[in-house]
């Protein structure tokens, strides 16, 4: 349920409206004096049969303003600044205001101006109203003014027009008259109503309304109010007829059937409250939020944003950590499998020890018979080996032979040594052959030859 509170006049009007898509249903309807408002409000929250989801308020008339400004067609930011200056000049700094762009209008020369309708509510009024609801379960979601709410009602009732239309809500002790033209709220005024005994034919009220219409014509020269819409007490039909004759305006009744099917034209339906219920906050530029609420909202927004960022980062980190942990877990499992297989292979290899040794012996030992036979073959006649050695040094078989070459003379002995060296070099089994020592002993030559096995 939407609780709509109209604080515009001395009598506070409250309506509980159930809104389902386009249809409205009045659940509660009250009229209170301002003195009993806060007490009755708390009671209302307690006893209400429907849950109050939303509260909408239109502020009292003396704390609001409606004014149309025509400003040069500037860029948005500059236009906002210029409008703020104009509003401050006109009403001071105590007001919060909203504006509605009414479009371009021709200015002096070829210039184009922009027409802006401003609606303002005193900032402390907003704060005061907001505080009233501090202890209550539902907080006001929308503050606006009575004419703005009424405009929504007229639009819904298809009474809004490009012709100047005056809406008169007849009430006691004050009636209200608002003049609209298209989207513009041109005039809003309260009219005191005398008691029926003092003004039985309501001529004083009719005069007051007529004076307001004349004032409008003075304010907007060459313009007259074409249509008059009445709502409320119907006991002034004679006065209405007088007004019609004087102003030549068309008299239109406010039919609630056109607003929503099922709504009856009853006196307890407050047009201001109904208008509040019809507003759509998401498509509405003339709604107010108190500064303290704005601050709270900003804090909440900052908190939500920072929490989201923190949570987002936390989530990203958690995702990365879980992904890496999972990766590590998989690697560990895979590694464990490989280790197990290695262990099995090692156990199997222990059983194949003899084969391993056999393999090693075969691959590491040189062909001894071939080496000894080759060694015998490379020795030419006249040469005698004194010693022959073969040893394994770091996987390479190195050897040395020492001996004596005995030729017919020193030269032939030396030639024999050279021949022996050549034979070593030509053998496919030896490489890296070198004469390490050579010494003449008479005609004989003592030598030492070094070599490697070519394996």
């Amino acid at each position, binding site marked *: 349920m939407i609780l709509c509170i109209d604080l515009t006049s001395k009598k506070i009007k409250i309506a509980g409206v159930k809104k389902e898509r386009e249809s409205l249903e009045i659940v509660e309807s009250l009229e209170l004096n301002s003195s009993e408002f806060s007490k009755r409000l708390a009671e209302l929250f307690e006893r209400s049969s429907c849950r109050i989801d939303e509260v909408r308020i239109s502020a009292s008339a003396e704390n609001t303003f409606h004014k149309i400004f025509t400003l040069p067609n500037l860029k948005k930011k500059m236009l906002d600044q210029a409008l703020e200056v104009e509003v401050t000049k006109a009403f001071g700094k105590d007001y919060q205001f909203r504006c509605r762009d009414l479009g371009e209008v021709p200015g002096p020369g070829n210039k184009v101006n922009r027409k802006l309708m401003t609606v303002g509510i005193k900032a402390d009024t907003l704060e005061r109203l907001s505080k009233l609801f501090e202890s209550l379960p539902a907080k006001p979601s929308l503050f606006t003014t009575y004419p703005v709410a009424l405009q929504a009602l007229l639009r819904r009732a298809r009474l809004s027009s490009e012709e100047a239309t005056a809406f008169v809500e007849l009430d006691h002790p004050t009636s209200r008259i608002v003049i609209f033209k298209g989207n513009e709220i041109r005039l809003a005024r309260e009219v005191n109503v005398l008691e029926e005994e003092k003004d039985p034919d309501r001529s004083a009220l009719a005069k007051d309304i007529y004076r307001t219409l004349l004032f409008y014509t003075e304010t907007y020269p060459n313009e007259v109010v074409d249509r008059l819409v009445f709502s409320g007490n119907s006991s002034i039909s004679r006065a209405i007829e007088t007004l019609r004759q004087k102003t030549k305006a068309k008299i239109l009744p406010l039919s609630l059937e056109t607003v929503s099917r099922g709504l009856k034209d009853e006196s307890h339906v407050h047009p201001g409250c109904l208008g509040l219920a019809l507003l759509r906050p998401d498509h509405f530029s003339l709604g107010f939020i108190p500064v303290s609420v704005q601050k709270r909202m900003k804090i909440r927004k900052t908190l939500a944003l920072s929490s989201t960022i923190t949570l987002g980062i936390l989530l990203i980190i958690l995702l990365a950590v879980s992904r890496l942990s999972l990766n590590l877990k998989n690697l560990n499992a895979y590694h464990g499998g490989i280790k197990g297989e290695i262990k099995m292979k090692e156990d199997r290899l222990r059983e194949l020890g003899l084969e391993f040794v056999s393999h*090693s012996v075969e691959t590491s030992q040189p062909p001894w018979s071939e080496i000894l036979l080759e060694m015998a073959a490379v020795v030419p006649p006249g040469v005698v080996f004194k*010693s022959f050695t073969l040893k394994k040094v770091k996987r390479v078989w190195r050897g040395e032979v020492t001996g004596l070459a005995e030729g017919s003379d020193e030269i032939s002995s030396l030639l024999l040594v050279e021949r022996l060296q050549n034979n070593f070099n030509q053998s496919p089994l030896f490489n890296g052959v070198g004469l390490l020592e050579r010494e003449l002993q008479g005609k004989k030559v003592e030598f030492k030859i070094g070599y490697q096995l070519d394996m």
Partner: protein
Amino acid sequence: MKKEKLIVIGSAFAVLLLLFVGVKKIKALQTQVAEQRENLQKSSQRLNFLRELEQSLELRRETGKVLCQIPRAEDPVASKVLVAKFLQSFLSRMGLEAEVKVEDERESRDFPDVISITEVPMRIGIKNYSSYDQVMKVLKEFCNFPFVIEVLTIGGTDVAVPGVLRMQLKYYVVPGGA
């Protein structure tokens, strides 16, 4: 404004703290993953090596010859004596007079740790031989045992044992082989 600032500062601090802790944790995990990958690579390489070795040894078992082993005793000193006696009698039967010096058994470094093989270093000095053929025969006979010759010299002094033909060799002991 103050509250907003506090919230922003608090959140920024929380975000920084989260980033600090998170990045540290992520880096640690990345290092662990990298290390594990490296270990995995090494293990895979080792496994491949073992597979190939196993295949080759299995093939050898099916087709290769069987090496003879010298009988051994549980007592290491007795084992040493057994090896020396065996070799002396083996060479004697080939008509060679030899001196055999056997050292203590030790763990062999010629094989991977997987197969725990020990080795018995020894030196053999053959005092006389009739021909090269006899030497070749001895060397050929040695091939039937798990012997590897490290030094062989005829007429040289590189091996500290008396004899014309001197050999420094190792006898591999395969666990459970004898």
